[in-house]
């Protein structure tokens, strides 16, 4: 059986995932993965031109025609459930109608560059993408219970339409869905370098351990798609 070929496209967040992938884990070889990325400021310029992903600052291999990939994973500026929850709460407090509050969530998703690229790739290849939310700043004060968190996840999925939303694993958060510091210490930037020397963290990027959790969540999702459950570690 042919090994599915994946394209991970994202902002500097993908550095942690790429580092985790390079370190390897049992079962990773059930997929072949290429990484394409640009830091957050440059990510809006990332485009698909003549069938190739262009304007990236980092790629892990030679640029291939996007039609040669079996699945696309976009991990960049799709707002997190925490961010959407906060914006919706602010709209409610401002006296906005429920229609406006719902539109806030939909617009936040659809105005993201992650969604733009997912739509572009779908138009070119016919394949819907998997999208991962932006990291939550590890010092966030936003608190959400499980019910609310799931509710916002469902809103994100609805806004994404054909595309699949891959939530961060529960293990990355505490009881109130605030990020746990152990996945941020020693944060990794786009090309694999540490954000801060001496294993400090920049509050924005995850480390390899966090990257591994995200990668596993994505691959578990794809296992169902490609019927590869038996090969998973």
């Amino acid at each position, binding site marked *: 059986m042919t090994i599915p070929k994946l394209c991970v496209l994202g902002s500097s967040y993908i550095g942690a995932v790429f580092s985790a992938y390079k370190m390897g884990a049992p079962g990773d070889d059930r997929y072949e993965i290429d990484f394409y990325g640009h830091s957050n400021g440059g990510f809006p310029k990332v485009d698909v031109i003549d069938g190739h992903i262009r304007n990236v600052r980092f790629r892990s291999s030679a640029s291939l025609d996007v039609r040669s990939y079996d699945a696309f994973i976009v991990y960049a500026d799709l*707002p997190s459930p925490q961010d*959407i929850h906060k*914006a*919706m709460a*602010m*709209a409610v407090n*401002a*006296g*906005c*109608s*429920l*229609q*406006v*509050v719902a*539109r*806030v*969530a939909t*617009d*936040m998703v*659809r*105005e993201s560059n992650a969604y733009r690229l997912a739509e572009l790739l779908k138009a070119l290849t016919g394949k819907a993408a998997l999208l991962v939310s932006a990291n939550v700043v590890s010092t966030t004060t936003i608190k959400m219970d499980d019910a609310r968190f799931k509710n916002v996840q469902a809103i994100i999925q609805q806004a994404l339409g054909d595309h699949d939303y891959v939530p961060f694993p529960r293990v990355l958060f505490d009881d109130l869905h605030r990020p746990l510091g152990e996945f941020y210490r020693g944060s990794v930037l786009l090309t694999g370098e540490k954000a801060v020397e001496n294993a400090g963290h920049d509050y924005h990027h995850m480390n390899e351990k966090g990257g591994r959790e995200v990668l596993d969540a994505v691959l578990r999702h794809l296992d169902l798609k490609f019927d590869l459950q038996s090969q998973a570690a």
Partner: protein
Amino acid sequence: MNNPYVGLEDRAFWKLAVASRSLFDLTDLWKPKFDLKTSDQFVTFGSCFAQHIGRALAARGFAWFNGEPAPRGLSASSAKTFNYNVFSARTGNIYTTSILAQWVGWAAGVLSLPEESWETDGRFYDPFRPAVEPDGFDSVEEMQVSRAVAVAAFKTCIEKADYFVFTLGLTESWRNIETGYEYPMCPGTVAGVFDERTHAFDNHTVMDVLTNLETAMDQMKVLNPNLRFILTVSPVPLTATKSGGHVMVATMESKSVLRAVAGQLSRQRPDVDYFPSYEIINSPVTKAVFFEPNQRDVNPRGVDFVMDNFFSAVSAQPTSAKPVKPKPASGAEPVASAADDVVCEEELLQAFGGAA
């Protein structure tokens, strides 16, 4: 021979100021009464044309105050759909001076907020802002909360502003006979159900318009004694008239009434100035070049021309801060855009033209 016309500026003489010039060389059409600064807070309300003024002020670096901004996360397109960032609060179009007085009365606490709502197919519409939520509200309560927020934002605009820029649009209006409240749109057009036993047509006279505008201004001055007013008359003709007359004749009558009141107040009150949007677009000198082919919508060149006159007059003031040129950066709102980019409830009346 000495007489009062000797020594007047060129702008006082038709031959020198108009006949001997190209349309685009007309200058000095307006001399601002106030020393307008980019740091002054401007709020804009009124008919459809007022939207251009708010946008242009913001694009030229003036402090356009938005008392009810779109919530964070709402896209520019959705914000427009839901009537955010159109006027300085989410009032919808305020076409008449009587509706302005009504809004001011609500803001000042002089009038109580009406309880009326319009229901269509299980959705609820605000009779006083029928188009702000295109699909209506989920419930009467939601609509009332939203209206209260808009009234509070309108009050904040009055309190915070240095200049209240108001575009007078119409004299024709519809009123609830029982409550006395006036609607911006006739019930049964955008939403609601028309009932001739409850809903009455008014065509405001010069005295009505004057009284309502002065009442509104005086109440605003109670909230903000330093507030000053810039009035202008919308050059956009009526979409439809219920006056019984021809719509073109009714338009001229309405605009003449509004123009007369604006001019009179500008001469009488030191806190009122008049900017001639109406004349710039509608004068025979312009030969209707600033209208779209339907002879009603002002085209983008016309909007630009009006606003260029506004800002060139402001920048000619010796002590004023200079407005900046609008930046056509990607994603930025243009200074003037096509007529279909304007949120205008009255245009919905167009749909009834030719109806059986």
